[in-house]
């Protein structure tokens, strides 16, 4: 545990030396990066030590701290959330050296680095704390540093706006947590987290609903996702990678931890989480399809993946309610593995998107094009991430989705017909997978293939090695989980045991056995693909490469004739019109001799732009009018208020 504490401290102070360094020198940024690397190494050592000793480590300092003691505990559930963090945080820090060098960003580079380290440290703190107050401290530190990361470029209007939306959203969640912990204390007797499976079912409904709201808001479950797209788009890419890869997962951690505390789980908890997961998954990916901004698109994919994770968690909860240990074990294992997987491939995608933005200077997908020739490494790495996030073999996304699928199929083995409804998760996952595939074909195809769609894209340059190296590491991690999935099985087993007792974990032994076969097929796939590619390249050595693409006989196609991102997505976006409400402007051609026309389409966020903004605008209008009525400047009316208050108070006291 000393290693872990050291890691937390190192992370938190990593940006401090930079504050005293020169604004335009790079001493500070290198120190910060080193500290983050060292902090992650410390954390990894702690993880290896604890898991090597087969279980968990605790640390308690009894002191006059609210709740009795400063209590930290590292168990397998925390470890599954910490493991990707220790990989992502240093990758992001190294990437930041090339992406956001102090010399080019003297105004906000130090702030960014300070809060980057701070958010990593606070997430580590909250993932290991076992005391409600300590958890809330970590939560709030994380939330605030997140705000400063999002509004790094606070001279830009949209960054400030995204930051404020995030700040309001996260504090609504914190408010719910402030209500949740006293309720937990009433059940458990102290502010320390009780042992797993020790709380009675009585009074658990309110706790669950509060937790679902607060943690769902943080993780971006569907109706509560509204802060996420803007926030991830506004932050610098490596900060977005951390926010999306790690920070939003703290919400999932909260849900997993909270549900582990109860001895009995009512069935409706599982159904609710499952339903929310399906809605988030399908609408998240449909919204992603409709985006033109590469980072907003990736952010909506976070909503989708949180949906997949929630489907896994929902199945696990149902497994506990209906006493089906196999369903519970597979659902939870899929949920936890997808948390790690999503962290890996989503940060890979954010980092490579950052490298594209670095090279071209815009986030609009329709201004890219032909980048694979100009940024061959970035392109290949993005392709790897795209295959992984679409859940395709041989990468890691497939493994976790496979576990969740298998969980969904388990529900069929029961005679109870009602539970069979949960098998709907399988077709829902298939639809999500198909849409995600369409979306990433779109992004990769439009951004990296074809001809450059703008002069900036034609002059794009490859990212420096300091940015490429972290992406290579992340892709290697994705491939590692995909090709050797068995290596993570012991950790998953331990986590399942921590969540629900050893019963389900033992079953996981047999159900995880096919992972080895999947690994074998993946190796075979990779080998055959490589052999095929090598042979085809060999066979095509002397081929003609100087002809233009077939244009049905038309000899002079221009780059503007290529399919765009919007036209690619149009078919599917129209099919999902019921949930997206895309707006289309112009584009109608009339008359025999049509004049030039403009067409544009965009898809505002259904919750933020269509519900919350009008609602709050209405509220503001209402209160403005109320104020004008009540505070109208007439002294006699104010005296009347005083008199009325006195009368009311007197009557209240006499009662």
């Amino acid at each position, binding site marked *: 545990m000393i290693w872990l504490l050291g890691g937390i401290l190192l992370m938190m102070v990593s940006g401090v030396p930079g504050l005293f360094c020169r604004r335009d020198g790079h001493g500070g940024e290198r120190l910060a990066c080193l500290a983050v690397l060292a902090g992650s190494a410390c954390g990894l050592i702690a993880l290896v030590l604890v898991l090597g000793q087969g279980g968990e480590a605790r640390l308690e300092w009894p002191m006059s701290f609210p709740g009795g003691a400063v209590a930290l505990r590292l168990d397998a559930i925390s470890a599954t959330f910490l493991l990707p963090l220790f990989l992502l945080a240093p990758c992001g820090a190294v990437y930041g050296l090339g992406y956001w060098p102090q010399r080019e960003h003297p105004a906000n580079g130090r702030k960014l680095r300070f809060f980057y380290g701070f958010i990593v440290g606070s997430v580590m703190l909250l993932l290991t704390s076992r005391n409600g107050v300590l958890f809330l401290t970590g939560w709030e530190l994380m939330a605030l540093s997140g705000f400063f990361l999002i509004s790094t470029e606070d001279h830009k209007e949209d960054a400030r706006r995204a930051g404020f939306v995030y700040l309001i959203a996260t504090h609504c969640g914190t408010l719910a947590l402030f209500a949740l912990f006293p309720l937990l204390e009433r059940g458990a007797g102290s502010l320390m987290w009780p042992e797993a499976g020790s709380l009675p079912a009585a009074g658990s409904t309110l706790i669950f609903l509060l937790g679902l709201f607060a943690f769902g808001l943080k993780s971006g479950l569907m109706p509560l996702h509204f802060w996420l797209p803007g926030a991830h788009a506004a932050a610098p890419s490596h900060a977005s990678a951390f926010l999306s890869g790690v920070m939003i997962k703290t919400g999932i951690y909260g849900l997993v931890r909270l549900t582990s505390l109860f001895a009995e789980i009512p069935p409706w908890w599982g159904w609710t989480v499952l339903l929310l997961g399906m809605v988030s998954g399908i609408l998240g990916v449909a919204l992603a399809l409709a985006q033109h901004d590469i980072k907003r698109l990736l952010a909506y994919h976070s909503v989708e993946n949180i949906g997949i994770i929630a489907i896994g968690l929902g199945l696990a909860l149902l497994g506990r309610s209906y006493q089906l240990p196999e369903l519970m074990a597979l659902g939870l294992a899929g949920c936890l593995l997808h948390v790690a997987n999503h962290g890996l491939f989503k940060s890979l995608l954010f980092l490579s998107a950052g490298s594209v933005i670095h090279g071209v200077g815009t986030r609009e997908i329709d201004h890219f094009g032909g980048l694979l020739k100009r940024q061959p490494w970035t392109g290949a790495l993005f392709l790897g991430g795209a295959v992984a996030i679409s859940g395709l073999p041989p990468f890691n996304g497939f493994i976790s989705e496979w576990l969740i699928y298998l969980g969904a199929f388990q529900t069929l083995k029961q005679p109870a017909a009602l539970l069979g409804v949960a098998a709907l998760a399988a077709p829902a996952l298939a639809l999500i997978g198909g849409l995600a595939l369409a979306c990433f074909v779109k992004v990769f*195809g439009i951004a990296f293939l074809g001809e450059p769609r703008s002069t900036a894209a034609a002059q794009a340059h490859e990212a420096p090695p300091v940015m490429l190296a972290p992406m290579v590491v992340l892709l290697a991690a994705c491939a590692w989980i995909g090709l050797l999935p068995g290596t993570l099985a012991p950790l998953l087993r331990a986590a399942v045991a921590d969540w629900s007792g050893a019963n389900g974990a033992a079953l996981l032994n047999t159900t995880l056995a096919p992972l080895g076969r999947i690994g074998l097929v993946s190796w075979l*796939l990779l080998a055959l693909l490589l052999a095929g590619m090598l042979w085809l390249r060999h066979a095509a050595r002397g081929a003609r490469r100087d002809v233009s693409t077939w244009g049905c006989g038309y000899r002079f196609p221009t780059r503007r004739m290529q399919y765009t991102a919007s036209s690619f997505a149009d078919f599917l976006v129209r099919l999902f019109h019921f949930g997206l409400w895309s707006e289309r402007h112009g584009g109608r051609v009339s008359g025999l001799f049509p004049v030039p026309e403009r067409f544009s389409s965009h898809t505002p966020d259904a919750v933020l732009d269509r519900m919350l903004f009008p609602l709050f605008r209405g509220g503001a209008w209402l209160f403005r009018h109320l104020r004008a009525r009540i505070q109208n400047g007439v002294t006699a009316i104010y005296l009347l208020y005083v008199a009325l208050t006195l009368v009311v108070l007197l009557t209240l006291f006499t009662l």
Partner: protein
Amino acid sequence: MIGGLVLHLTLLLLFAPLLQGVIVKTKARFAGRVGAPLLQPYYDLARLWRKGFVFSTTTTWVFLAGPVVGLVVPLLASLMIPFGALPAPVSFEGDLILFVYLFGLARFFTATAALDTGSSFEGMGAVREVTFSCLAEPTVLFALLVLARLSEGFSLNALLGPHLTEAWRSDAGAALGLILVCLFVVLLVENSRIPFDDPTTHLELTMIHEVMVLDHSGPAFGMILYGASLKLMVLGALLVRILLPLQTGWWLTDALVFLGGQLGVAVAIGVVESTMARLRLPRVPQVLIGTSLLSIFALVLVLR
């Protein structure tokens, strides 16, 4: 084990192009023509094999990855599906998901290879391919759920086991009939046949699969054609086994039954192609959603 693997691959690699020939022949007979010889697809492959490549200046290495993945994926997927009564050489719990997702990988690379040319025609083809497939995907899963409910395990070997004979006679027969229809529709969509796509149309604007491979040439194009016929046979195997769950006990008769079933499916495709017109594009999603609903009914029938 080794014998089974060799038999499996031999059946697949040798007979897959024949099915295409049978479809073409059936269509010709319906139209009152003699038609191309049954072995024409083999001649075509041999001809493409000897030809050279031509590449557009726009393309990159991704353009070559499309044909390779398109050929490797059906080959690997075939190892996991039983050919009639001949069990799959590779089988484990949950291999059905890998089976479905492998075809997803093929779709990913076929569509990206199409976009690699920068042509808007191929862009259109890519859009239609990914759109229709993602609508067909839930149907496949519903069908697999129905099969899983009727069987003991979650491997394709167990799903398509000999118990299907009894299942047809029991209450579940209606559900099996429904998913048979659904899987046939999926087969038509996934293999770009009429009424969803016309493989012989002359207009690029109306094609789906053919337009995606417009710029491929020589052996790479041969790989695509061969991969497409392998895919038809592998997906057809699912249909054949549900329809003919016979278990003769001797590998030769089993193989003959399987091949007979495959030829039957090919003839059926030929009949559908001869008697139906291609659907208008906006109609296709409606048909696919309708099929999903049918498969939901099938699931409800076995769950109740």
